């Protein structure tokens, strides 16, 4: 009986300490992002962290370097270090599911930003860009500015990411109806500017007669443009990107890039942080998935836009 009393007292003391510990430290949110080697994702991660801090949370940004193994390490570290929520930009639509499920099992809600994981129930909510619709609009402008004819190339993003294919499918859902437009090469450059430059240099050797290039993001569009400048063909080839990154917006103003699709990373990042905050306050009925519209931007309306979102 005496032992039981001592045990109960110890348990009470432990619980009190634990409660005190929770009360004295604010909850923490981890921001795990696919890469920080692209200014667009830096903006996404920093905006999510800034919003979470404004809401009173400690934050830390983890860079997965487009590597799912490293992403797994970050999830394990975040869970072990007591992060209460993860604002997540996945590296791989299928490969990242296991990490989200691991966090879910540990009671840590995950809010996906910009990119989705292929699971309806793993993440608490997924806030995504409507890449497909943005690229349908880009495809229409591509057909109009190319006057329905010419050879072109497509530079894809990371092949394991759904956004890569949603963008490609949106573009081709329209462009493929025009037999005068012939895609002579389609290669991945992993959403990376330097890789896109190398890919474009190599394609130009085999296909010097192209008149258009559609890239899955602005970083690759800028890389492709660099390769075109180096080969002396920049004036003959129309370059299309996707994102609304600062250098692409400037390039549209200077007639170097023809068009891009403006995404709104601020909306996605802040919505994710707000949702996590609402989760801690007891809300549970989040939409499993919401999309943020992407808007086509060209030289005609470039003055209405600034990088990463519209002017207010």
């Amino acid at each position, binding site marked *: 009986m005496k032992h039981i009393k001592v045990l109960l007292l110890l348990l009470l003391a432990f619980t009190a300490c634990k409660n005190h510990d929770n009360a004295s430290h604010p909850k923490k949110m981890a921001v795990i992002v696919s890469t920080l080697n692209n200014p667009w994702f830096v903006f996404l991660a920093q905006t999510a962290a800034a919003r979470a801090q404004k809401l009173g949370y400690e934050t830390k940004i983890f860079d997965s370097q487009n590597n799912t193994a490293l992403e797994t390490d970050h999830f394990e570290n975040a869970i072990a270090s007591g992060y209460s929520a993860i604002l997540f930009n996945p590296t791989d639509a299928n490969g990242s599911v296991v990490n989200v499920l691991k966090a879910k099992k540990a009671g840590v809600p995950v809010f996906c930003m910009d990119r989705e994981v292929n699971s309806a129930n793993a993440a608490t909510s997924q806030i995504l860009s409507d890449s497909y619709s943005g690229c349908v609009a880009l495809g229409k402008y591509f057909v109009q500015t190319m006057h329905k004819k010419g050879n072109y190339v497509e530079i894809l993003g990371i092949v394991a990411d759904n956004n890569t294919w949603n963008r490609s499918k949106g573009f081709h859902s329209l462009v493929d109806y025009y037999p005068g437009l012939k895609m002579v090469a389609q290669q991945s450059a992993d959403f990376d500017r330097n890789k896109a430059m190398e890919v474009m240099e190599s394609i130009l050797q085999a296909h010097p007669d192209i008149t258009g290039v559609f890239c899955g993001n602005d970083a690759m569009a800028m890389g492709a443009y660099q390769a075109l400048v180096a080969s002396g063909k920049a004036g003959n080839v129309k370059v299309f990107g996707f994102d609304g990154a600062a250098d692409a917006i400037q390039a549209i103003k200077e007639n170097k890039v023809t068009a891009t699709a403006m995404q709104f990373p601020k909306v996605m990042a802040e919505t994710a942080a707000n949702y996590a905050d609402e989760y801690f306050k007891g809300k549970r009925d989040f939409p499993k998935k919401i999309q943020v519209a992407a808007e086509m931007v060209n030289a005609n309306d470039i003055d*209405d836009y600034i990088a990463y979102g519209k002017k207010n």
Partner: protein
Amino acid sequence: MGKKLLKCAIIVVVSIFVVYNSIYFKKLDEVKASANKEFNATAYARNYLDKKLIPSIGTIPSTDSLLSILKQNAPNAFKTYSHAMDIGNIGYFMSKGQGVVTSIDESDVSILTPDKQNIKIATEYIFGNALRDAPGIININDFTNTGDLNSISSELDKIVRNEVVPPFKAKVKKGDKIEFAGAFELNKEHLNLDNIEVIPFYLKIQ
């Protein structure tokens, strides 16, 4: 002895219960079929057009009345009459109407409505999500991945391009009076009511 027997019996019953509820047998071909089950966007789009869009013609607002409301109070018109699966500036409106054909070009048939509004009926660029999203009846959360959702738009637009537009385009001429039903897109930040382009799902020359 009796206690020991009872204990053994309970252990046996519990073990059988646990094992029975832990193991399931299924035919391998059934599991494979389930894993490979693909979303049939073509069938979904056909059903959506026949069972949802066509029957809605009687209840959707006319383009003339919608434009009048948009000119008076655009935010309210967006709130009441537009739908969008995305959050952002884009809204899609269902509408129907009639008008006299004023010109025909490669991409559109232009008409003048009874309220003297110039409207374009798209006959070439029938792409995107206007017809899928304007009625506001498809829920994004019913789909595991957005690719399936996008394929609905793709298949629906394909039906319109292949079945609705060609017989109309083959016969329509300047001066004809036509009826239409469809959807159009507006950007609430960049509101332009002078260039309305309707993506049709119903077209008739009177």
